C-alpha cells in the first residue's frame, strides 16, 4: 500500500504447457489498482489459460506471479480467493443442484457462531441482486435457470466477495443490453474503489466504454499492450490475427444451383423458436450468433441430440423429424460436435481406432455376420488419416495425447468414413492454431466443391464470414438475417447479433 | 409312522459345561391343549441341514396342533437381523420362542428380556450361553466330531499302519466348527490315524472342492478325506475323476441328504447322524410342555449314531433328514 506504484498483479514470463499444446509462452502481464485491463485475442490464444493461472486453477509451467509486490504460489482457487482474486470463469462454476443464494455464497458462507446463517445469506444475496439490477429469485435452483440467468448469478458471485482483483471471462456473452449496462456501471464503481479488473471479451465495441489498457495475445504469446483510448478497432484486429486474412481462408467455389438436401420448417425447441432453413448441395452455409443464440441447438435437435417440440425436418425428401441420431447419420449427415473431448472422441483409444469406428457401416469392411476385416479397415483408416493430414506416426497414438489440432483432424477424418451428403461442422476449429486451421479450411473447400452440402456453425466471426456463401445470423433463437455475397460484412453481421427478434433490414 | 419313542441323551445337571450324559427315551406329548403360538428363528435356510430342522419343527407343530411361525436371518453375519426378527415375532404375540442362534453370547440380552415377559426360550442346535434359557434341544458338535474320529480310530488302532487323513472342519471361527475340530482331533489321539493340518474354508461346494483338490495335490498319500458334509459331497467327483475310488475314502461329521445318498451308493464311507429333525421336534415339544406346565427334560438331544453301509438300511431317513423335495415351511396355523 505504501508504494502506490507496485502493480496489483504482476505476472512475469508465464508459460503453460498442456500435453501437446503450448498454451502460454513467456507472457508478461501487469494490472494496476483501479485499472480495467482487457485481454484480447482469438480463440485459443491463451486468455482463459492466463487468468486460470491467476485464479489458482492451473499452475504455470514456468514464470512467477506477484500480488501487491509479494511473490505468491497459488495452489487452488481457494488460495487465490484468499489473496483477493475473484473470477467469473468462462466455464460456469455453478452447482446445478443448489439454490441461487447458496451458489453465490459457496466457499464463503456467512456464519453465526459455528453455524451458517442462511437467512443472512438469503438477505445478502437478495440485496446484491437488487443492487446489480438482476431480477432473479434467489431461492430457485440453478438447474432451472436459463443460461443468461446463470451468467448473472456467476457475475453476482464475484461481486459479493470483497475482491481486490476481479476477473471476468466473457461475462456479457449471453447478457442482454440492459443487463450489460448494469454490469458496466458496477465495474465503474469497483474501479473507483481501487479494484483491478481483468476483462475478456470478443466484443470490440465494449472496450472503448470501459477499458483502460488492452493486451493482445496470439498463439500463447503477448503481442503487445496498448491504451484503449488511442487504438482503433482495425489495429486491434490486425494485432489479433497478425496476418492477412486471405492467406488462411481459401476461395471456395459454389455450385450455382445446388439441390436442396435438407429443409427445416417452423422448428421449435429449447433455445430456438420458429426456424426455417434450407441446406443446399455445393454450398457452404454459415451460422453465426452469440453464445446461447440457438445456433448450435437447432442442429443438435435435427441430429436427435435434444428434443424437437414442433416443426419438420426433411432429408432428401424424407421426413426425419424425430429420427434417432444413428438414423440421421445413416441418412448421410455428418455432425462434428463442438466439444471434441466430451462428445467427439474416444479419448483412451488411438487415432486409428477413432476413425475406424466410423468405418463399421461399410459393407467392404464389415461382413454379413458383423465380422470386421481388420487389415482392410486399417488400410482405409490410414488412407483417411493421410487425407486429413495426420502424420502416420500419430495414427497409432492415444488420441488424448495428440495436440488439439490433430484431434480436430481425427474428428474431420471420422466424417470421411462413409459416404455423406451433408456435413455439419459446429465450431470446426475450436482451440486449433492457425496452421491447422488453414488445413481444415482446405478440407472444407474440398468437401463443398465435391458437391456436398456444408454447414459451418461458429462463434469465430472471421471464419464464418470468409468461408461461407450464405450466412444465417441467429439472435435469441431466431434467424435474424440471411446474408449472401457482399452483405456478409462485419458491421452488418454484428448488427443482427443484437437485433431484436426477426426484424429484417 | 410316529417318530417316538426316540433314543436320546439328557445332560445332568442341565446346562452344565461338564454335565454327564444320561441315556433316556424321549416321548413327546400327544396333543397340545390349545393352539399355542410358537416362534422359531434360524440363522438361515440355505442348506439341507436347516431345512431338516425346519421339517422337524413344522411337522411337530402340526402333530401337536400348535401354530408355528419361522424366520431365517439370511446368514451367519446377520446377528442384528436375527434380533429384530425375534423381537418382531414377540411383538406379534409369540408365546414361546425357539432359537437356532447365530451367536452363543450375542442373544443373551434378548433372551433375558423375553424371559422377563414370561415367554420361554428354547435353544435348538447351536447353543446359547444365557442362564435364562428354559430348555435346550441339541447335541454337541464336539461329540459329532469325536464320533467321526472314533470311527476312524477304531479302524486303525494304535500299532497298525499309519494312515493320513485330510481334515476339512468348515469355516474357521464358527463355534460348531471349532467344537467338531476339537472332538475329531481328541478322538483320533493315540491311534494310527495321522491328521494333516486342518483346512478351514466356507461350506460352499466350490470352496471345498478347491480345498480338496489342493490337498490331494499337496499330499498324494492321503487315505481318508474327512470334513463337513459339503466336503464329502464335493469330493465324490474329484475322487472319481482321479480314479481314486477305493484308495481314498470320504467321511462327513454330520448328515445331509447328499451324504446319505453317497453312503447308500458307496461313495461315502460313513457319517454320524445328529437327527436334526428330531432336535427340531423335541424343541417344539419342550416349548409346549413348558407352556402347559408339564414335566420336561431341560437339556436333551437325540443319541448320535454313525451311519455306514452296514446299517443304512435300518435307519429311518425321515428322522435324520428332510424328505426329498421338501419345501421350507415358514408357517403352521
Amino acid at each position, binding site marked *: 500500500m505504501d508504494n502506490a506504484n507496485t502493480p496489483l498483479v504482476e505476472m512475469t514470463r508465464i508459460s503453460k504447457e498442456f500435453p501437446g499444446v503450448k498454451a502460454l509462452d513467456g507472457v508478461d502481464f501487469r494490472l494496476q489498482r483501479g485499472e480495467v485491463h482487457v485481454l484480447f485475442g482469438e480463440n485459443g490464444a491463451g486468455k482463459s489459460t492466463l487468468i486460470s493461472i491467476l485464479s489458482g486453477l492451473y499452475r504455470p509451467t514456468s514464470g512467477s506471479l506477484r500480488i501487491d509486490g509479494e511473490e505468491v504460489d497459488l495452489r487452488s482457487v481457494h488460495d487465490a480467493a484468499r489473496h483477493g482474486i475473484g473470477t467469473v470463469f468462462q466455464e460456469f462454476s455453478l452447482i446445478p*443442484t443448489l439454490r441461487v443464494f447458496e451458489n453465490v455464497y459457496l466457499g464463503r458462507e456467512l456464519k453465526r457462531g459455528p453455524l451458517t446463517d442462511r437467512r443472512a445469506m438469503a438477505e445478502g444475496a437478495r440485496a446484491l441482486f437488487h443492487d446489480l439490477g438482476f431480477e432473479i429469485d434467489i431461492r430457485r435452483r440453478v438447474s432451472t435457470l436459463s443460461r443468461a440467468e446463470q451468467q448473472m448469478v456467476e457475475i453476482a458471485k464475484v461481486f459479493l466477495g470483497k475482491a481486490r482483483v476481479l476477473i471476468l471471462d466473457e461475462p456479457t456473452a449471453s447478457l442482454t443490453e440492459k443487463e450489460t449496462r448494469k454490469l458496466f456501471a458496477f465495474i465503474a464503481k469497483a474501479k473507483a474503489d481501487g479494484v483491478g479488473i481483468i476483462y475478456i471479451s470478443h466484443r470490440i465495441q465494449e472496450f472503448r466504454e470501459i477499458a483502460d489498457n488492452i493486451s493482445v495475445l496470439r498463439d500463447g504469446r503477448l503481442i503487445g499492450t496498448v491504451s484503449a483510448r488511442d487504438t482503433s478497432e482495425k489495429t486491434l484486429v490486425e494485432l489479433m490475427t497478425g496476418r492477412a486474412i486471405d492467406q488462411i481462408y481459401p476461395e471456395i467455389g459454389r455450385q450455382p444451383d445446388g439441390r436442396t438436401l435438407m429443409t427445416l420448417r417452423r422448428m421449435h425447441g429449447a433455445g430456438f423458436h420458429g426456424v426455417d432453413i434450407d441446406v443446399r448441395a455445393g454450398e457452404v452455409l454459415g451460422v453465426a450468433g452469440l453464445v446461447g443464440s440457438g445456433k448450435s441447438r437447432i442442429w443438435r435437435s435435427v441430429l436427435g441430440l435434444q428434443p424437437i417440440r414442433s416443426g419438420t425436418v426433411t432429408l432428401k425428401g424424407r421426413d426425419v423429424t424425430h429420427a434417432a441420431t444413428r438414423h440421421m447419420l445413416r441418412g448421410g449427415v455428418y455432425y462434428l460436435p463442438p466439444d471434441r473431448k466430451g462428445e467427439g472422441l474416444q479419448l483412451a483409444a488411438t487415432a486409428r481406432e477413432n476413425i475406424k469406428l466410423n468405418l463399421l457401416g461399410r459393407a467392404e469392411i464389415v461382413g454379413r455376420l458383423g465380422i470386421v476385416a481388420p487389415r482392410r479397415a486399417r488400410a482405409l483408416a490410414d488412407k483417411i488419416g493421410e487425407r486429413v493430414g495426420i502424420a502416420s506416426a500419430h495414427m497409432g497414438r492415444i488420441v488424448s495425447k495428440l495436440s488439439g489440432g490433430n484431434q480436430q483432424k481425427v474428428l474431420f477424418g471420422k466424417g470421411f468414413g462413409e459416404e455423406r451428403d451433408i456435413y455439419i461442422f459446429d465450431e470446426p476449429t475450436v482451440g486449433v492454431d492457425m496452421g491447422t486451421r488453414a488445413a481444415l479450411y482446405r478440407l472444407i473447400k474440398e468437401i463443398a466443391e465435391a458437391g456436398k452440402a456444408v454447414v459451418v456453425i461458429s462463434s469465430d466471426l472471421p471464419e464464418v464470414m470468409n468461408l461461407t456463401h450464405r450466412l444465417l445470423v441467429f439472435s435469441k433463437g431466431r434467424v435474424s438475417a440471411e446474408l449472401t455475397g457482399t452483405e456478409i460484412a462485419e458491421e452488418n453481421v454484428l448488427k443482427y447479433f443484437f437485433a431484436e427478434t426477426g426484424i429484417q433490414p | 409312522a410316529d417318530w417316538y419313542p426316540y433314543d436320546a441323551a439328557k445332560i445332568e445337571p442341565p446346562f452344565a459345561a461338564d454335565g454327564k450324559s444320561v441315556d433316556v427315551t424321549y416321548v413327546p406329548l400327544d396333543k397340545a391343549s390349545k393352539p399355542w403360538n410358537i416362534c422359531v428363528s434360524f440363522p438361515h435356510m440355505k442348506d439341507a441341514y436347516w431345512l431338516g430342522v425346519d421339517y422337524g419343527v413344522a411337522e411337530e407343530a402340526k402333530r401337536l396342533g400348535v401354530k408355528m411361525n419361522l424366520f431365517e436371518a439370511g446368514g451367519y453375519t446377520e446377528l442384528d437381523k436375527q*434380533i429384530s426378527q425375534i423381537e418382531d415375532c414377540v411383538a406379534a404375540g409369540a408365546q414361546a420362542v425357539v432359537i437356532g442362534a447365530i451367536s452363543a453370547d450375542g442373544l443373551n440380552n434378548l433372551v433375558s428380556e423375553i424371559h422377563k415377559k414370561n415367554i420361554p426360550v428354547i435353544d435348538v442346535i447351536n447353543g446359547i450361553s444365557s442362564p435364562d434359557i428354559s430348555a435346550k434341544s441339541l447335541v454337541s458338535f464336539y461329540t459329532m466330531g469325536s464320533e467321526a474320529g472314533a470311527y476312524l480310530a477304531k479302524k486303525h488302532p494304535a500299532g497298525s499302519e499309519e494312515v493320513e487323513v485330510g481334515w476339512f472342519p468348515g469355516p474357521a471361527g464358527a463355534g460348531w466348527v471349532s467344537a467338531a475340530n476339537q472332538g475329531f482331533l481328541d478322538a483320533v489321539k493315540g491311534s494310527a490315524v495321522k491328521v494333516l493340518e486342518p483346512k478351514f474354508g466356507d461350506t460352499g461346494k466350490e470352496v471345498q472342492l478347491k480345498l480338496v483338490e489342493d490337498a490331494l495335490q499337496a499330499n498324494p498319500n492321503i487315505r481318508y478325506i474327512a470334513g463337513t458334509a459339503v466336503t464329502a459331497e464335493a469330493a465324490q467327483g474329484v475322487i472319481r475323476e482321479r480314479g481314486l475310488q477305493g484308495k481314498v475314502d470320504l467321511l462327513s461329521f454330520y448328515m445331509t441328504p447328499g451324504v446319505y445318498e453317497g453312503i447308500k451308493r458307496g461313495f461315502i464311507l460313513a457319517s454320524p447322524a445328529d437327527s436334526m429333525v428330531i432336535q427340531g421336534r423335541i424343541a417344539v415339544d419342550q416349548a409346549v410342555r413348558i407352556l402347559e406346565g408339564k414335566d420336561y427334560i431341560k437339556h436333551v438331544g437325540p443319541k448320535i449314531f454313525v451311519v455306514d453301509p452296514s446299517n443304512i438300511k435300518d435307519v429311518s431317513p425321515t428322522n435324520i433328514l428332510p424328505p426329498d423335495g421338501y419345501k421350507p415351511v415358514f408357517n403352521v396355523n
Partner: protein
Amino acid sequence: MTIQSSRTEDAGAPRTRANILLAAIRYVFLRVGVLPFFLVFSLVVFSLISNQFLSIQNLTNVARQSVYLVLVSLGQMLVLITGGFDLSVGTAIAMTSVVSAMAMVALAPVMPDMIWLAILLGAGAGLGAALLIGCLNGLGIAQFDVSPFIMTLGVQSVGAGIALFLTGGVPISGLPYDFGNFFGFGRVLGIPVPVMIALLAIVGIWLLMNRTKLGSHIYAVGGNVRAANLSGVNTKRVLFLAYVLCALLASLAGLLLTARVESGETNLGGTIALESIAACVIGGVSLRGGLGRVENVVLGAFFIVLLQNGMNIAQIGSYMQMVLLGSLLVLAVILDQFRYRMLVGDR
C-alpha cells in the same frame, strides 16, 4: 423439458378435483420422492393384514430396531451426496464391536472403580478403529482417485479379515454390565437410550447438512465437483471428511449394537451396506450425487425396517421378502430417475 410441457397441459385443462389431486401427488413426488407413497401404501396394507402391526408396542419396537440402520444410513447419505458410496460400513461396525469389546474386557479389571472410564476408553478404541477405516477410504478416494466401489470393497475385505483374525470368529463376552445396561437397554426420560442417541445424531447431521459450511460443500462437491473446485471448495478435503464421518456414524451404530448384544461380534452388519444404500435411495438420495435430505433418509431407513417388521408380522416367508425388497429397490430407482429428469431437466 418434461416439466415445461406438462406444465402447459396443466394450465390448459380445467381445474377438476382429480387434476388437483394429481398436481398434489406430482408436487409431493418432486419434493420428497417416492417414499411417502411407499410408506402410506405399506402402512395401509400391513394394518389390514395384521392388527398387531399398528400397536404402540410394535411401533416403538420398530423405532428401536431402526436406530442402527438410521445411523448407518445417515453416514451413507453423506458419501452418496458426494457422488460415491461406502461398502465398508459393515466392516466398520464389526471392527468397532470387536475392538471396543476387547478394550473394555481388557480395561475393566484394571480399573474396577472407574468402570465408566473403561467403557469410555473402550468406546474410544472402537471409534478409533472405525476412524482408521474412514481415513483409509477417504485417502484412497480423495487423494488417489480410486473408484469408491473398489476402494471400500477392498477396505471391507481387509477389515473383515482383521476383525476375524482378532477374535478367531468367537464372540467376545464379559463386557461391563453398565455398558449394556445403559447403551443397550437404558432409558432416559422414558426414551430408550439408543433412540435418544439416534435422535441426537439426526439433529446433528441435519444441522451439519443444512447449517454448516461443510454441509454445503458436501452438496456442492456432489452437485458438480469441477464447479465446486472453481468456487474455492477444497474438494479433496470434503470428500475425505465425508468418508470419515460415514465410518464414525457406522461406528456409533456398532457401539450401540455391541451394547445391545453385550458382546463383541464379527458377525454384525453383513448386509447393512447394501441396506443403507437402499434406504438412502428410497429416501430420495440421488446416486449421481448432490441431492438428498436428512429427514427423508431417516424416513427411508425407518421405512425399510418397518417393511421388514410388517413382512415378519404378516408372516411373509423370507425368500419372498428378498424378492419384494429387490423389486422395490429397482422400482424406487426407476422412479427416482424420472424425478431427477423432471428436476434437472433433460439437458
